[in-house]
């Protein structure tokens, strides 16, 4: 369990990093917190020839409130968000999901950008990013663009980024008025990857009818899975227990296609999707009511 030989660069500026990535192309990999990349290198499942370490690039470490909501530099440590009062206020769904990622020691090193770029189907952050309609800012030597979270994920461990592109920043929009959110997951042990998880956002009209909803699952597909039909079913409805259960049922039976692994077979995952889907929709709806002026 020792990695194959590789060259190592630790640029101090973003420009240098982008130059290196452009020069080495597919042979290079950015190194963020290393919590996913280093283990795969130790198993020799990944054998990048060049590592471009992002840990000395100060301009990638930031968190601020801006137009797009909570803006996080790609190198923002997961632990920083978890402990941030600003994150709690501006992106409460993100904040609620943070402690579910691995263990505290791993969150101390692991980054927001690393997790989003890694695109593990069992990861929390991609599902949260879609539920919040977050957007990702990516750059290469020649190009810079914003990508909607929904378009960012294109398959198993795959994103819309091209070789030479780096994730720079993510913007998580603020909660809208009269909206509520929720995140839950079921893992075999605290700190393990979830067998199933879900993020929900429910927004009410001033008449108490659902105006907009999001329900996004993790660990039940090749990437984060947005249950759009279930969400559409909810629009125009009052969020009663029956309505929310029917939506979770719809999502679990029609919108996901989980594959099994040694921890959870497809039937159990589907069952969990139903259970968790219903739980997150209920608590998101309850919070939305709380957020409504009485």
């Amino acid at each position: 369990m020792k990695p194959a030989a590789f060259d190592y660069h630790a640029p101090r500026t973003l420009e240098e990093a982008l130059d290196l990535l452009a020069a080495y192309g597919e042979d290079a990999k950015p190194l963020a917190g290393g919590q996913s990349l280093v283990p795969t290198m130790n198993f020799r499942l990944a054998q990048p020839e060049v590592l471009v370490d992002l840990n000395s690039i100060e301009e990638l470490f930031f968190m601020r409130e801006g137009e797009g909501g909570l803006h996080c530099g790609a190198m923002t440590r997961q632990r920083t968000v978890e402990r941030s009062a600003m994150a709690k206020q501006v992106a409460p769904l993100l904040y609620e999901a943070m402690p579910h990622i691995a263990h505290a020691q791993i969150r101390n090193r692991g980054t927001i950008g690393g997790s989003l770029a890694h695109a593990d189907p069992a990861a929390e952050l991609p599902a949260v990013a879609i539920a919040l309609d977050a957007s990702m800012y990516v750059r290469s030597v020649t190009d810079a663009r914003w990508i909607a979270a929904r378009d960012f994920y294109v398959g198993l461990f795959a994103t819309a980024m091209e070789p030479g592109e780096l994730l720079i920043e993510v913007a998580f929009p603020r909660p809208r008025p009269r909206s509520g959110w929720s995140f839950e997951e079921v893992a075999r042990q605290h700190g393990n990857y979830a067998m199933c998880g879900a993020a929900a956002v429910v927004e009410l009209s001033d008449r108490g009818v659902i105006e907009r909803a999001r329900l996004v699952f993790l660990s039940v597909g090749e990437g984060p899975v947005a249950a759009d039909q279930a969400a559409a079913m909810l629009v125009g409805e009052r969020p009663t227990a029956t309505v929310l259960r029917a939506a979770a049922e719809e999502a679990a039976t029609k919108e996901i296609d989980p594959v099994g692994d040694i921890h959870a077979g497809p039937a159990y995952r589907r069952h969990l999707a139903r259970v968790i889907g219903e739980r997150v929709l209920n608590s998101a709806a309850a919070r939305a009511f709380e957020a409504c002026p009485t």
Partner: protein
Amino acid sequence: MTTRQFGQPLKRNEDPRLLTGRALFTDDVQLPGMLHVAFWRSDLAHALIRSVDVESARKRPGVVAVYTAEDLGDFWQPGPLLLPPPPVEKLEFYPRTQVPLAKGMVRHAGEAVAMVVAESRYLAEDALDEVLVDYEPLEAVVDLEAALHDDAPLVHEDLGSNVNARVTQTKGDWAAAESEADLIIRRRFHYDRGTAAAMENRGIVSSWDERSQRLTVWDTTQAPIAIRNGLAAMLGLSEHQVRVIAPFIGGGFGPKIMMFYPEEVLLAWGALKLNCSLKWIEDREENFYATTQERGQMHDAAIALKSDGTVLGVKDVFLHDAGAYAPYGLTLPINSQCTLLGPYVVPNYHSEFTSVFTNKPIVTPYRGAGRQHGVFVMERLLDAAARRLSLDPAEIRRKNFIPPEEFPFSNEIIYQDFAPLVYDSGNYEPALDRALELIDYERFKREEQPRREAAGERVGIAVVNYIEGTGIGPYEGARVTVEASGKVSVATGVGTQGQGHYTSFAQVVAEQIGVDVSDIHVVTGDTDLFYWGAGTFASRGAVVAGNAMHAAATKVRGKILKLAGEKLEAAEEDLELIEGRVQVKGVPQTSISLGELAAEANPMRGAVQPGTEPGLEATEYFGPERGATASGVHAMILRVDPDTFLLEIERYVVVHDCGTVINPLILEGQIQGGVAQGIGNAFYEQLHFDENGALRNASLMDYLLPTASDIPNIVSDHVETPSPLNPLGVKGAGEAGAIPVGALFAQALDDAYRDIELEVREIPLSPNRLFELVGEALTREPA
């Protein structure tokens, strides 16, 4: 020292060193010019090796040598069979043992095919990528029943079948029990494989010194003396030319007493061949293949009872997964066979097993060592019977206990020490009562459970019993020496892997010699410091080495008293040993220190009397006539999340009888650690092999070990029935915590789902499996 140290909850002597990172582990050994070893391991479970090409690997920078089976010449030999089969009539036994490097065929995934020696482990692993093995995949033997079909592929072609052994043992007459019975229950039970997953993987440093003509080996073994003897024999060296040191070891649990691991013989051979020092540290991935595993068995069992719940007999026919090689003989299935009988009167017993070779890693004892299975089968049969007879699970057990006046109690069949199974002592009912009291059994069933179930919760309670044959022979030895400093040094041959030997052995010695435990220096596992011994296994350290310590310390005490009597001109009966001095009782002014006495016993002038020995020292050996039988009760309250099938252990009680307790704190640690391992085994840990014999979860990402947040606080208490078989009255305690946990989980889950008649018949479980079992129970046609 006025207070007694034996029996006290003393903190461990070794902990400051361990907790501050200053203890020596094998990987801490650094020698000048040391080279590093990595192994090319098969990714197929069963294949013919057509050729192995190591030429380009040899040419890589930093690579010193690459060896295959061919390069070993005559040194290439299958390992020794550690234990012959037990003396059971009509037994069939076809042993096959592991080889240093696979030749011609690989028989399990992870079997080593080539060995690379390089200047660093990194360079050695780079070279592994260049080893080219051309092999022809064969169908793998994975499933135990399929392995016995006529057309099954063969793990060892020359045997003509996959049978490693067939053994039948009986007591009384099962057929008679069957015909007399009011109720017979038949069930099939499965127990699947796990791995011990010690925190420290295995490791070996071996160093040949050409000038002194000596080989020194640091090895994470539980049996350094046997390793020395074997290596000397294999390498053609005298035993005095080989020193094996088992330094601190980060967990043994049994797999570290397997002998000889291929790496053990290869590193010693390589150090001689290259005239150098070699290091190999097993990484976690290798540990999943190259370290032995346990627990695959399938039982078809039946119990015959009278309508009042009295057990008339048990029949059990089972298959045991031996893995690709079976160097350990039949210890595991024999343990299963014997331990099944438990603390109960079972007048008629028929037990028959087939040990089966499979294309899976080697199987040798792992904490519990086959006992889990026996306990699981018996306890599950009793639970099923209790349900049919509308008896409380605790009551059917109580009804069948061996009464205290029946000891010693003979179960007739042959145990792992090759002697008929005789329980030396025991008193089961008080332990059961205490456990029921601590878990508040009656109140839970009467009030709490109905109330919580009415509120939609799923909660179950369970109570199970077990016995454990511990502390078997052949022998261990100890040498106790009073040094001129007045401190005491103690040496024994058993290895130590965290059991607190440095403290518990010191307590045994302190009891006789009257010095503070912190002034006793214990050495274990260095063959230069103690020559004879067997090893740490079968919960025997405290029993066998502990009693050798006691014997040696008692003899030294005699020498101290004799010499002090002469010096102080007092009768020996009038002397006492207090705080490192010998004094005339009640006259502290008339005393002499142990240090002075030690110096007197080793004079520089004058003549030592013929027939006496210098020094205040003695070496003694202890070999018990047979094992001491420990026993216990575990009880638990378990909550199941009815939607997610995650579990929460709300209360866990252990009441245990391991005879006289040397150190209750250390005992507590053994129990807690054992229970933690048992919980892992019951609900988290499972090795998933696919139909090709490939392991699907060879990493701690996917092989789930219980963590602190999964383990409850354990409430424990003790009943002390001293063993009559050894002077200290102790029984082993190392494995007890782990043994009955699977049976306990099963009963608690059944109880939580008794409305749908759930019956758990397998271990390990998982939330996913529970979801499936509950689903099946819900859709089952009512009987």
